[in-house]
């Protein structure tokens, strides 16, 4: 018997897509039954109360969660987000309902023994509700009380050998696509790089020292499955700078219809016979592909590595062998100054352990941003305010035509004194010798 009537939410149980309402209800039932005799450390009926408070929001059209609340574990400034219900008398089970961010493994692979341990922990000390995963990439454990926080952290570190993630004005938990583990397009080992950066910057992850959040995301190729170009302050995207490898036999097989184009991604509709000229050569954004006499030729010098030809004919075309990454900086969502896409800073960098070259760029940027960034200013905004040139200066990188889409429209150039012959110091008296007032 449900604790609260939820007529509105109940309507979300129908329809084919997995219903979070049905799922929470099964959790309510299991906790009420408590077949294993768990000594619940937070109210057993908290999922019931969560449904209750959510139903109230569906009626009121407003949230019933209070603003903020500072809670955390000793010595960390991030990883836990305080949350309190604004109707605690009605819903005591969720009066205190904090979130715990748990650092996810790179690529989001799991063994069930780890997940079961996590479930046991969250059954005993939390609401039994999670996000798999939150938008930053972390495993999110949803809903516990303050006295449980240290215990959860203790169990996570001692029994599960796993740490919390980042929140607040910290380095946020780095994330990556699955990379070379199961993708032929991945130019770099995204998982190892992501893991290494996470380990190297544990202090920055857990102790707020930044003007605002800072995100690393690692994409294995320009397809961008982890959206680093749109979401991360420091975006690392795998790429190559030599030639796309061509298997002409496979090209012929695509032409002959023996292999389905685009790995079969368009199989649900009859788009007609696959036409390499139209669908590959003519769609190449830099027009560097020629298809003649059944042979495919790529003028690699003009290739911009958009991935279209490779995505369309993965068995005939493969990424080059001289691989590394591009680094782009300053992406963010609109708050405050409008959305920003990441801007290209390093066109090509080798990605090899211990990743010292990449770390040098990171640390130079941090030194500058921590000095100059205003409170709650993302790197992209600091870049906009203080100029891309300044970013080049602090990272010791040379300006390059690749840094811009096109050169500037206005000639208001901030020349530096040392760039101008004779410097800026002049005497008005000397001027007056030649020019009357």
């Amino acid at each position: 018997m449900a604790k609260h009537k939820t007529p509105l939410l109940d309507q979300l149980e129908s329809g084919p897509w997995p219903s979070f309402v049905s799922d929470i209800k099964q959790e309510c039932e299991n906790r009420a039954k408590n077949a294993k005799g768990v000594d619940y450390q937070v109210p057993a009926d908290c999922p019931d109360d969560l449904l209750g408070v959510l139903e109230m929001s569906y009626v009121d059209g407003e949230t019933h969660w209070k603003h903020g609340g500072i809670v955390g574990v000793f010595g960390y400034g991030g990883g836990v987000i305080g949350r309190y219900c604004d109707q605690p008398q009605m819903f005591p089970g969720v009066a205190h309902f904090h979130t715990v961010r748990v650092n996810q493994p790179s690529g989001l692979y799991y063994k069930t023994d780890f997940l079961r341990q996590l479930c046991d922990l969250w059954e005993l000390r939390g609401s039994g509700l999670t996000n798999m995963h939150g938008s930053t990439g972390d495993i999110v454990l949803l809903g516990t009380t303050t006295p449980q926080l240290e215990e959860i952290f203790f169990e996570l570190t001692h029994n599960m050998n796993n740490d919390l993630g980042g929140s607040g004005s910290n380095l946020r938990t780095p994330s990556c696509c699955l990379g070379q583990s199961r993708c032929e397009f991945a130019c770099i080992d995204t998982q190892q790089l992501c893991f290494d950066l996470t380990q190297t910057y544990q202090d920055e992850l857990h102790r707020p020292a930044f003007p605002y959040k800072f995100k690393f995301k690692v994409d294995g190729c320009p397809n961008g499955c982890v959206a680093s170009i749109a979401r991360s302050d420091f975006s690392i995207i795998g790429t190559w700078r030599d030639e796309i490898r061509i298997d002409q036999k496979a090209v012929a097989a695509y032409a002959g219809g023996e292999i389905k184009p685009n790995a079969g991604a368009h199989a649900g509709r009859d788009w007609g016979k696959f036409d390499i000229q139209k669908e590959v050569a003519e769609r190449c954004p830099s027009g560097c592909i020629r298809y003649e006499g059944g042979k495919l030729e790529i003028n690699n010098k003009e290739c911009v590595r958009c991935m279209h030809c490779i995505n369309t004919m993965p068995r005939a075309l493969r990424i080059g062998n001289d691989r590394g990454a591009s680094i782009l900086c300053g992406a963010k969502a609109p708050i405050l100054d409008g959305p920003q896409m990441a801007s290209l800073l390093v066109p090509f960098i080798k990605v090899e352990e211990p990743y010292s070259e990449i770390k040098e760029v990171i640390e130079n940027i941090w030194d500058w941003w921590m000095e100059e960034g205003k409170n709650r200013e993302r790197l992209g905004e600091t870049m906009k305010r203080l100029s891309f040139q300044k970013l080049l200066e602090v990272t010791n990188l040379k300006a390059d035509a690749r840094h811009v889409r096109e050169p500037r429209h206005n000639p208001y150039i901030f020349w530096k004194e040392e760039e101008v012959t004779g410097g800026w110091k002049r005497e008005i008296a000397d001027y007056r010798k030649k020019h009357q007032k």
Partner: protein
Amino acid sequence: MAFISSGYNPEKPMENRITDIGPRHFEEFLPPVIKKNKGTWAYHEILEPGVLLHVADSGDKVYTVRCGGARLMTITHIREICDIADKYCGGHLRFTTRNNIEFMVTTEDEAKALKKELNGRKFAGGSYKFPVGGTGAGVTNIVHTQGWVHCHTPATDASGTVKATMDAVFEEFVNMRLPAPVRIAMACCLNMCGAVHCSDIAILGIHRKPPMIDHEHLDNMCEVPLAVAACPTGAIRPTKTEWQGKQVNTVAVKEERCMFCGNCYTMCPSMPLSDKEGDGIAIMVGGKISNRITRPAFSKVVVPFIPNEPPRWPTMTKVIKQILDAYSKGARKYERLGDWANRIGWERFFEVCGLEFSHHLIDDFRDPAYYTWRQTTQFKF
């Protein structure tokens, strides 16, 4: 309920303390065939919606069965996922960046059996637990935020709007018949914890009423200068006011300058702005993240406001269907939604999608606005 300690001693917080160890190394979790062939994958194929085949240079094959998940999931549900992974995949599984779950096996027969098993499991309420799909030129799972389930600033619910949308577009999740992938994302306020600012179709919670001011508590709960600095349009200024016969320090809001971003509330809890009639949803389209053919692009607002209509948001899902149907009909193979709109022209986009253009859709925020106005006589009647 007796308090159970796992070993933490609040008297001596540093005793046996382990910190800064990071996550478990991913290699511990990789399925054997993945670990063996890492970095040497030759190609992949989508055998049918939701079923992928990856072939390594060694000739090894891995079949992946992908299914959707609600993101908000309980431990009972996760344990069920574990049971399936134990039964079929030697205890291995993974999640995708779009909250799908992937089970990997090494034969096609096992993949077929898995698909059948996953599609056969339903919640008591009738919905699928693990619908197989989300690959190729279709709609995959929606990346979303917390909404009314757990957040303090949302203008709408996230889990509910996503459930309603995925129900409405479910056929596109289990098929691959669109011109290109369509990525739908949902964020419940302008903070955009999801990447909705670069999605083919974005559902975005917005507020429309300026903040209320809780003069009684503001000076105690907020740093006035921070609240003032938080406003991107300079609509907030410090002031004093009389409250119950006492002079209090507080702020004043120039309401016609407010664009309802809610950043003041984020900085100052005494300036709430949520409101049943004021809050609702904006629809944005045409964003993308991939560099494929065209460069990554921001989403554009095409419907400035749809009221919150819980539990199923019918107007919102109708608009999304209209856009998806017009795109599906009009776009060329490989053409993403925004590229299609750019090709036919946005004036035509509104026509074929049956959407009304209003003054709310002309940008008026700082410099970026100028770059969106038309500076040519090339337009379509």
